[in-house]
């Protein structure tokens, strides 16, 4: 009987916390690496179309984004559900594209200006009308290098 008592009476051992900093640092590093900062908050909802033949856009600093899609739920009361253009953080119209391209160009160094790529992030349910209009505006602003942003999917052969 006495033997059993002795066994049960031991206090619970302290958990070794010496490696807790390691774990915390690991998490820290992980999040530091994997998070990409979202520079703009989205006012339009964009679900990119799928494509198999996509190429990567390198040099993020040379890329400007034009978002085209239906306004997010909280803005639908004001702007309706028809596709709209978002430049930077705000709803914009076609006429603003030229100024937008000019300002994006000015932000780049002289050497990089010719390399400016415009990534069109269009929602897949958008009609082509507005996208054609945007393309025409880009041509007028002579921002000719464009990319149709799309999600990469694997080929199904």
């Amino acid at each position, binding site marked *: 009987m006495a033997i059993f008592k002795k066994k049960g009476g031991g206090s619970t051992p302290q958990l070794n916390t010496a490696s807790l900093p390691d774990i915390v640092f*690991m998490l820290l590093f992980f999040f530091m690496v994997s998070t990409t900062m979202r520079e703009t908050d989205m006012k339009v909802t964009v679900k990119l179309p799928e*494509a198999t033949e*996509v190429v990567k856009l390198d040099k993020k600093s040379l890329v400007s984004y034009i978002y085209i899609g239906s306004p997010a739920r909280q803005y639908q009361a004001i702007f309706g559900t028809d596709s709209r253009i978002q430049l930077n953080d705000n709803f914009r119209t076609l006429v603003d594209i030229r100024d937008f391209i000019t300002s994006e160009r000015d932000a780049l160094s002289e050497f990089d200006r010719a390399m400016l790529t415009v990534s069109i992030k269009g929602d897949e*349910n958008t009609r082509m009308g507005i996208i*054609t209009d945007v393309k025409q505006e880009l041509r007028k602003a*002579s921002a000719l290098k*464009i*990319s149709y942003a799309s999600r990469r999917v694997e080929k199904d052969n």
Partner: protein
Amino acid sequence: MARSTPEINGGSLADIAFLLLIFFLVTTTMNVDTGLARMLPPMPEENQKKAEQDVKQRNIFTVLINKSDRLLVEGMPMEVNMLKEKAKEFIVNPNDRADLPEKKATEIEYFGTVKVAQGVISLQNDRGTSYRMYMLVQNELVAAYNELRDELAKNKFGKLYNNLPENEQKAIQKVYPQRISEAEPKTVGGKK
């Protein structure tokens, strides 16, 4: 005295932590922006308009998408999954048919003199065409070029096009130049 339970050896915990860290470092890909790259044609000057229309009919591969997302390829209705094969046939013109693009002998590094077909794919859409359909068609057309380039790269260099050094890629680009023209917008078939 009570026998205390032995402490768990925590020495290797750090190693495990680092192992996990490295695992995540390797497997996470930051979301890179991907898309179909295109060059828009420059805005035509006023007096330039005439010259552009001189492209021969046999050199143009017209793809029309109407507002209900149906395709008309070279005057024939077509499904999207057929488009790639048709486009490939147009680009290569393997049997030198008279209704497919004419060829021009060009000197190209690695290949010598090659007959390069002068075809242009002209993609036209309606304002009511959905962006999804438009991208689907664009994707098929790019796929046609990529497949041809891959085939050629395999035959010539034994590697896929993407794995070739830059100068060899350039040579292949000259054999199969990507000519997709996104036509001037036309207002046909009424507005949406």
